[in-house]
């Protein structure tokens, strides 16, 4: 069944039955005429005073006929629009079976995506009118089963289809297309193509796609739509060369864009530079160059073609193109690891970290240098390396000649060696200025000479040099001097060797000879020297260092070349990856913002070529057919305009005549109308495929957890034995009460927790009375308890059997003790010891020597402290951590438990009449210990510290 076509005019309705509603219009007319709006009734007590006041003006209660007509017209327009009229509908595609719509949605189709989508939508709308099923396949999407659904759903799918930042693997879809065609032999195939492929990249498969599609289609016609030639340009092969940032601009067809402008932006999207490009006539490739200062060039993160919205016309640049790999080699032994501040590389590392990628290989000097050269370092720093063996020296020389920079720092080893691999000849031994045996004061830096690359850096008087290595004066020395002291002694010298430099700093890289490494000038000097390698870096780009570190996607490009958050399908890449974008790795930045890895739509050397579709033996149809006009949108717009007119008329002519309710209804109706217009007409820019991360629902927080998070509480483990649980609760309640009486800690009501199900993180202290009759806690519970103890919580295990232990001293453990052992066997428990007399637990609030409960005889165990250090005995010791576990057998809770009047609930066993009090004090000490940690252990030193300060 097709749409209703009216009397040969090219007007068709998709849903003609809706027009029947027009018959209801006269009824509406009558209804509106017959029932005038009833007046609003208002109770008004002072009316009696004003009854005699005659109303001044009465307005008619009836709507004028023309207004009525206007409203009927609005209703009619909405009804007709709902019938989905179309002017000049697309001639239905040949055939009557399902429509299979294949769409290239790689980056090459992003430029005219709107038209492609519109073309596809027209086809699908025609299918809707004809009642044909349809399927939409984005060829750059992962291949999946194609099943013909309703054409309306296909339109929805089409709307969510976006161009992606890589080129489609068309051939991957062939099997599913084949299956589809087998199941639906009467289907029609339409392929909307961008006709772009990459040279030498799956070209065969892509060209084959046309051939094999032809084979699959058999007798059917394959309609191909698209542009006459691939129109876009692509960027690839960015290179941060000596004389500028270059990028190769390529096109697939000589008729495509022949000139344009490139824009370079930094990570934040600020434009750093612009340049133009132009293809020589007929050429498919050209080069564009940004002439920018090195620093600015280094900040460039993205180059794109102005006006070209395609991920292919975007080149992302990461640290591999702009950061320098600096290798640090120290002549000092490995023993400096224990004292980092004395290590000569410490200051270098701190100074260079922000600007360069640092490598510090282990091993001997020659091994380290070998590795650094293999790793494509651009700068190698040698600190206090004395003798360099000839083979290494040879490699270093070659490295420098090719453009590397060798930066050497002096040191005792160097001063006492006969060194050849330096920019100037050196004197044996070093000069000491300002030492005990010298009359001089330490020298400061003179302003940097104009010939020096360091010229212009600020010189601080605070930088002093007390020891240095001296250069033999000769004719070349002034030329090779980059920095001198105030007395003219060279302190940084350099020599050009081939393409690179050998730079020698005549002081050490640590602060023993000079405080230069401590100053900001040091950082600036290093930056300048490293920047030199910009212009002299090794150029052969060998195989990149393969690291196994992977970085996850941070910001990826969509097909239009704009950044967005990564889709869930995006996967991390290896840090050294240079691959082209794919479905799993969309183009974009991966990894942290400081050192992102860029994945580009095109790998270096990729050239776009036109796809060969001659095998399909069909002509390429243009994308847009402009004749088909969907009339819904103009009709609804007209209705909306009339509605506004109606509102204005009623507002002007009959202020207040209309009742309130209809006005509110009118607003609702207009909103509805706007909604319909938007929905029916305008393709929304943001379809409903928001990042799923946004929709992730946070877990709900239970009320108990919320309360526990809002107020600190003590907790006990619910054992399942009602009697024990009640005593635990009463005990902790009593202890909480005592705490708020006597300390500044006012805990909330105690909470019973089930470690298997409840969140424990909110409680500082959990009391666990061990009950032998109850089953063992589950594995989940034990894991959660383990995590609780590891993350800073403290468990008190109470076997409550001190009395029994005492009675049977023949060391056969009680059932509770056995159960406790079972529980602890499943936990990662540190070494334990009975609370030593100097443990901080005995001093956190009260001074205690033991921790009685109902019984006073049981031992209390805590995590073993580190052994007593040598020297002065300390009055209190606590480890750095709070003991995660306290084990007792004294039945603490039973002693803490009190009734509402503060009277103890249970008697104590023992002769001490104050045992209840002592138990409560012990409990308070435990809580304070858990809350304050080793604070009290430090606190006991306060008198001594004050004493010392006083002296």
């Amino acid at each position, binding site marked *: 069944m097709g749409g209703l076509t009216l009397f040969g005019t090219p007007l068709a309705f998709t849903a003609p039955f809706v027009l029947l509603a027009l018959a209801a219009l006269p009824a509406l007319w009558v209804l509106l005429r017959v029932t005038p709006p009833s007046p609003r*009734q208002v*109770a008004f007590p002072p009316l009696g005073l004003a*009854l005699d*006041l005659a109303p001044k003006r009465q307005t008619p209660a009836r709507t004028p006929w023309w207004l009525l007509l206007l409203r009927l017209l609005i209703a009619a327009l909405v009804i007709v629009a709902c019938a989905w009229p179309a002017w000049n509908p697309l001639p239905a595609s040949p055939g009557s079976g399902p429509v299979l719509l294949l769409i290239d949605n790689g980056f090459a189709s992003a430029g005219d995506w709107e038209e492609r989508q519109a073309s596809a939508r027209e086809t699908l709308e025609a299918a809707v009118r004809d009642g044909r099923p349809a399927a939409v396949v984005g060829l750059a999407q992962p291949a999946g089963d194609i099943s013909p659904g309703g054409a309306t759903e296909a339109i929805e799918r089409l709307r969510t289809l976006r161009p992606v930042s890589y080129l489609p693997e068309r051939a991957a879809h062939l099997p599913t297309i084949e299956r589809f065609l087998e199941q639906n032999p009467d289907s029609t195939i339409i392929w909307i193509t961008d006709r772009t492929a990459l040279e030498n990249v799956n070209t065969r498969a892509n060209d084959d796609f046309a051939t094999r599609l032809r084979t699959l289609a058999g007798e059917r016609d394959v309609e191909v739509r698209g542009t006459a030639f691939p129109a876009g340009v692509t960027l690839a092969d960015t290179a941060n060369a000596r004389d500028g940032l270059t990028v190769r601009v390529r096109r697939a067809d000589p008729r495509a864009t022949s000139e344009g402008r490139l824009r370079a932006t930094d990570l934040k999207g600020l434009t750093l530079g612009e340049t133009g490009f132009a293809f020589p006539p007929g050429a498919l490739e050209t080069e564009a160059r940004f002439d920018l200062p090195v620093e600015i060039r280094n900040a460039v993160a993205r180059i794109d073609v102005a006006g070209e919205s395609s991920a292919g016309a975007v080149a992302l640049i990461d640290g591999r193109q702009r950061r320098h790999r600096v290798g640090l080699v120290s002549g000092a032994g490995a023993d400096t690891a224990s004292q980092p501040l004395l290590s000569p590389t410490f200051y270098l590392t701190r100074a260079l970290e922000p600007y360069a990628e640092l490598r510090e290989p282990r091993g001997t000097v020659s091994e380290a240098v070998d590795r650094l050269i293999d790793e494509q370092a651009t700068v190698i720093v040698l600190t206090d390396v004395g003798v360099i063996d000839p083979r290494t020296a040879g490699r270093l020389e070659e490295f420098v000649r090719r453009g590397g920079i060798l930066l050497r720092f002096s040191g005792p080893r160097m001063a006492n060696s006969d060194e050849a691999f330096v920019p100037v000849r050196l004197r044996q031994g070093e000069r000491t200025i300002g030492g005990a045996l010298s009359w001089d004061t330490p020298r400061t830096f003179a302003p940097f000479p104009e010939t020096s690359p360091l010229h212009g850096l600020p010189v601080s008087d605070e930088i002093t040099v007390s020891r240095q290595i001296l250069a033999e004066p000769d004719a070349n020395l002034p030329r090779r001097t980059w920095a001198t002291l105030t007395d003219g002694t060279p302190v940084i010298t350099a020599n050009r060797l081939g393409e690179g430099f050998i730079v020698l700093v005549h002081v050490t890289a640590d602060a023993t000879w000079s405080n230069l490494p401590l100053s900001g000038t040091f950082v600036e000097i290093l930056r300048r020297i490293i920047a030199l390698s910009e212009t002299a870096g090794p150029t052969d780009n060998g195989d990149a260092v393969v690291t196994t570190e992977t970085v996850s996607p941070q910001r990826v490009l969509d097909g239009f070349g704009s950044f967005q958050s990564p889709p869930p399908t995006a996967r991390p890449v290896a840090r050294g990856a240079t691959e082209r974008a794919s479905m799993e790795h969309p183009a974009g930045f991966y990894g942290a913002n400081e050192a992102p890895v860029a994945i580009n739509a095109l790998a270096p050397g990729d050239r776009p070529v036109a796809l060969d579709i001659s095998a399909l033996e069909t002509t390429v149809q243009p994308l847009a057919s402009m004749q088909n006009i969907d009339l819904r949108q103009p009709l609804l717009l007209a209705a909306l305009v009339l509605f506004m007119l109606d509102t204005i008329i009623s507002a002007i002519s009959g202020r207040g005549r209309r009742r309130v309710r209809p006005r509110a209804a009118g607003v609702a109706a207009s909103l509805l109308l706007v909604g319909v217009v938007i929905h029916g007409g305008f393709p929304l820019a943001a379809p409903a495929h928001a990042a799923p991360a946004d929709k992730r629902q946070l877990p709900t927080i239970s009320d108990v957890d919320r309360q526990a998070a809002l107020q600190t509480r003590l907790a006990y483990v619910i054992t399942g034995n009602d009697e024990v649980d009640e005593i635990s609760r009463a005990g902790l309640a009593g202890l909480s009460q005592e705490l708020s009486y006597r300390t500044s800690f006012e805990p909330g009501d105690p909470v019973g927790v089930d470690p298997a199900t409840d969140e424990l993180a909110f409680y500082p202290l959990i009391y666990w009375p061990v009950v032998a009759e109850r089953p063992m806690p589950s594995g989940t519970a034990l894991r959660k308890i383990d995590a609780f103890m590891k993350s800073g919580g403290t468990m008190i295990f109470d076997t409550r059997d001190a009395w029994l232990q005492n009675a049977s001293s023949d060391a056969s453990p009680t059932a509770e003790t056995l159960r406790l052992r079972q529980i602890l066997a499943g936990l990662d428990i540190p070494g334990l010891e009975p609370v030593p007399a100097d443990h901080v637990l005995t001093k956190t609030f009260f001074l205690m020597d033991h921790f009685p409960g109902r019984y006073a005889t049981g031992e209390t165990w805590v995590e073993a402290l580190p052994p007593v250090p040598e020297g002065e005995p300390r009055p209190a010791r606590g480890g750095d951590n709070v003991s995660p576990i306290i084990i007792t057998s004294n039945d603490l809770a039973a002693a803490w438990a009190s009734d509402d009047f503060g009277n103890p609930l249970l008697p104590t066993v023992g002769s001490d009449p104050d045992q209840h009090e002592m138990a409560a004090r012990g409990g308070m000490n435990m809580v304070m210990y858990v809350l304050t940690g080793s604070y009290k252990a430090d606190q006991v030193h306060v008198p001594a510290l004050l004493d010392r300060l006083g002296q």
Partner: protein
Amino acid sequence: MVHVATQPDRSRFPGLAEAEAAHDLAARLPRLVLESRRVSASLAHGIHGRGRAGPGENFWQFRPFYSGESAGNVDWRRSARDGRLYVREREWEAAQTMQLWIDRSLSMAFASSLALAPKVERAIVLGLALAETLVLAGERVGYAGALSPRANRQIGEQIAQVLAADATGAANDLPPAIPLKRRDETLLIGDFLSPLADIERVVSTITSNGAGGHAIMIVDPVEETFPFAGQTELIDPQTGERLRLGEAAAWRDSYRQRIASHRAGLQDIMTRRGLTLTTHHTDRPASEAALRVLSLIASRRDGKA
């Protein structure tokens, strides 16, 4: 847009809610102010000197001892100064009486969406709160025609009980025309929407012995501003009369003039009869009116003392 609602009939008989609200308000009123006033004027607020000797706390005069009197009356300290015997007399002090009346007619059971509370509820809360405050300050409070004056701490509950039981009184929109004693005061709370002649007749009867008093006029903001527009039918809840307005906004100005002249006439009557008039809008907090009336009561006392 303003909505108005006539309250259910129950609302005109105070319940627990009103009593509690009155308690609340009474508790917030500044007793301290009254207290300090009493100290400075050596006049208890409520215990008012009668200008002659009698039972009281303050010194009035020394008079010679008459033979035959109880020797215990002799003020020995004064008598020791000369040879004669004196008796210390104190000033006769008596509490003042406040007659409360609250309008609970149908027109009071009215609230618009602009108001914080229905008029009747506000009137009862104000009345009970003032009653409690006055009793706490030593006054005696009664309810016109239903409750004799008393200084009971539970006066709020008692008046509330009286009001709850008094169904006939609830229909009247004017207080019972009973003359008060000269030193008594009356406290009338209502909307005073009756014709001015009726009001004048009643008020003049009440004050015929020279008693003064205070009146609080409870006004819903809608009654003041008349914010209606459009086709409207006005209904008088008391009489059931209806007025149909084609365009309510056009009627507004003339209505406002009318209500203003009514207000002016009322003010005139009250002033002539020695009553103060406080206009209270129900979109304002009750404490405002309560404070104003309390200060008026206090200032009147000061004037008389």
